[in-house]
């Protein structure tokens, strides 16, 4: 892993930011600052290295293990650098029923990646994540911070093609109740049950 950029502590030159974040919490709840600190690092560096974990642990007087425990709970944070387009397929129940497995298979085949991998170019990363909270528009594919809902095969093809040109298209906002864009259709009469 390339650790060059982590040689200097992340928050060293950001004392105001650090104070602002720590100031949000009372002293006994200092550890609550863990999430925002992780998020700052993740946003700036696209992953949180072990050196950063140790730095945050130090700031909050925690052990690195605790930081890692919290961090690994959320698929938002990454222990390794991810590609420019981070494809996150929801793999929880509603999306599974709506064909998330087929979606994952399709992405695996098309990109030649298995979940957890990044391509050599550093363009795409593929990951399975837990419920994205958008179950009514299953299956959901999150790319970086953008949700693509009810994604069918054609949508995926279009999306990948655009991203190969380094364009992240606007997501199409789909109406609730429209359930036929991908995967097996819901049995008649049950959509609104």
């Amino acid at each position, binding site marked *: 892993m390339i650790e060059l950029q982590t040689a200097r502590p992340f928050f060293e030159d950001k004392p105001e930011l650090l104070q602002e974040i720590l100031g949000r919490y009372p002293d*006994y709840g200092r550890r609550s600052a863990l999430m925002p600190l992780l998020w700052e690092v993740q946003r700036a560096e696209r992953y949180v290295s*072990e050196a950063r*974990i140790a730095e945050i642990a130090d700031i909050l007087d*925690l*052990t*690195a*293990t*605790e*930081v*890692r*425990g919290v961090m*690994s*709970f959320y698929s938002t944070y990454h222990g390794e650098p991810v590609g420019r387009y981070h494809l996150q397929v929801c793999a929880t129940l509603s999306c599974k029923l709506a064909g998330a497995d087929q979606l994952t298979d399709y992405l695996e085949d098309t990109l030649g990646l298995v979940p957890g991998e990044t391509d050599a170019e550093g363009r795409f990363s593929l990951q399975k994540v*837990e419920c994205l909270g958008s179950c009514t528009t299953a299956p959901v594919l999150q790319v970086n911070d953008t949700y693509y809902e009810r994604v069918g095969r054609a949508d995926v093809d279009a999306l990948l093609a655009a991203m190969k040109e380094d364009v992240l298209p606007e997501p199409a906002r789909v109406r609730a109740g429209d359930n036929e864009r991908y995967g097996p259709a819901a049995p008649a009469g049950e959509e609104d049950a």
Partner: protein
Amino acid sequence: MKIHVNDVPLDVAPGTSVIDAVFAAGYDVPYFCSQEYMSPIGACRMCLARVGAPRKDRATGEWILDEATGDAKIFWFPNPMATCTTQVMEGMVVDTLSKEVKRAQNGMVEFTLVNHPLDCPTCDKGGACELQDRAYEYGTGESRFVFDKRHQEKHHALSEAITLDRERCIHCKRCVRYFEEVPGDEVLDFIERGGHTYIGTLEDGLPSPFSGNITDICPVGALLDSTSRFRGRNWEYHHTDTTSLDDPSGAALRIDARTGRIERIKAGLNDEVNKTWIDDGTRFGHEYADHADRITLPMVRKDGRLEPVAWSEAMRVVRDKLGGVDGTKVGVAIRADATLEEGVAAQALAAHLGTGRLDHAPRPAASVLPGGAPATLRDVATSDGLLVLGDPTHEAAIVDLRIKDALKGVPPADLLPHGVPIADLRLTERMPRKTEILTVVAPYRTDLMKHAGRTVTPPAGGEGALLRALLALAHARTEAQGASDPGKAADAALAGWDDAVGMSAADAAALLDALAAAEAPVLIWGGFVSADPDADAAARALATAVGAKTLILGPMANAAGLERIGVLPSHERYAYDPASSEVRAWILGDLDPAQDPTVAKRFADLDALIVHAAFENATTALADVVLPAVTGYEKEGSTLNAEGRLLPVRAAPVEAGAATDFTGVVKAYGEAAGERLEGRSVRSARRVLKKRLDVDLAELPDDGRLLPPAPAAARGARALPARRAATGSALVVPSLVRIEHLDRNPTLLREHGGPTLRMHPSDAHAHGLTRGEVVTVPVGGIPRRLVVAPDDGVPEGTWLVPTLPDQPVGLHPLDLDALRRERGETAEVA
């Protein structure tokens, strides 16, 4: 509170958990995540029961009645409840027997087993596994799960001493909670989430001196003690419930032995002492007892070589050798972890020989028996003002944990009919700790300081000056109260304060205020104070001045007991001094003073050197007669822990040839001398002790018995003239890992690393020493082989060396000019 569990009416204290009520009623529910002495969290959902309670009418405030019966109507909760996190309510009704509850339990067992590998036939926990037992009792024996189970690492070394099987883990979170709640070292956590969750650490090798306890509490075979992995099945072990002779805590142990060797040590339960926890040195430090080079037969020197002989012959030689020596010139010394019974034997032997040169070693310059008001471990755990001088984590590890109990501010729970509460609802995860009640004083940064609101670092050997200053300040402040202008007088008292003692005047005043304000203050001190009689006297006076109880941590397990029964010289002039030229013959129990070349030279022209030892060492190499000794695991007897509790020591079945304890030595000697000496057996020693202590040690309960402090008069008669405190730049410090056994404890050695020489990084730099290099350096005459470990918690100019029984805690001269490096060339790079 009146409640019903099935058909049993019960009166329980408010705040009791339903699970405890169920057990108190004599019923059972299965559970995995709850654990005695830890917070209940409701994670495993195995403890389900149907729970209902009457309700009051909001408008009238009257109980709502059941129309049919006229009794209060029971409103059942809509779902089965986790009994561990539910509190009892007035009139509550609990059902653990209905079909509905059975169904819920069946379901939870099936669910818990979904990803469990069911590899019980090859699992060390098999036969003593909570999951296995509960699956048999509460499962249906069938699973509807037809998919692939989750596959994870099966042999993950969390540390050198603990192996984790991630497939077996059922995510009860006991181990994770344990580290945060008990020792306060958060070194283990859940990683990932949902079905992917596993236990992991980023810290190198679980850095906590109490890590091994997780292998006891893991309800499945996920966390295993590497010293015993694959070495035996649970039903093959012979269990011995005994007391640790590792340190003066007096922790309860369970020794599991098989075919004559110790396979593992687990914590025993003693609610008053160690609860269910022991330290890693005690748990993993047993391998030496089974080491191949144990001395198993008596040996007598013939033509310069030690030859194995029978006990009777060895003892004839001893008798004849001693026969030629003036009795008053014989010295008898036993190690300070000998049992009380061995102490009596040593006394009888010394009396028979007519010598006053009897002692136990190591014995600090000052007494380790508390004066005025002794503190028990319960007093420590319920104190609201603690002043600790020393390093209890390493001196008596359990004291460290009981101090941490006090920080939680939750007094020990009352025992229930089934024992310790399973789910004590007063305990929660991440409780706020009242660190402000704890002050730790030590000449270097200790583990406990992390948990202390106030830390003080006096110069090494400076405890006396600090305590005297505190005492003077306490007295001056008391006087000031009576002065015409108390405020001014109090300021005047502070004016003379000298910060060089290690703390500022303001800090000192705050500390005294805190102790004065505390309702149950306790003063704890260990070897650094006891090494200096002046410091000891000041500590005792300070305790009296602030009304604190005292707990003194002696150098080894039974130091207090041996002092109490008087295994002491008739005059301090005759105190144990192996270098003394007045002694013509020595009888030594488990001591190895000849590590010091000066002593070795002296020993070369003794008339007789008789050594009772379990392993050959520098002293047996010079001995005329070597007698095989048992280790602390193989003794029958009793010990007195630091708080003054008599505790039973029982023998595990370890194959050790003709080895005996010291009573065996005295018996054999008596036989050779044609005399029946007192203390010739544990039984005869106990007869003597019964007269002296008024306790029948054969009847001692498992959790021991507090011995009332010795009457002041008796203590006065025993009071020894003070010895002087030593000086030097090496500070010999307590060690939770017994260094003298480390070479024969391979697991512990890998886990802990070799004995270290710790110094400030700048001192390391100045002497060109690099981390990890091995050096040999004379410390107080004994050449010590140590691993260099720079540590910025050590003040400049002080060098820390872990103690040996033959090198007690305190200052010793250090000969840095004679330091030799094991790998000279590599060290030059520094």
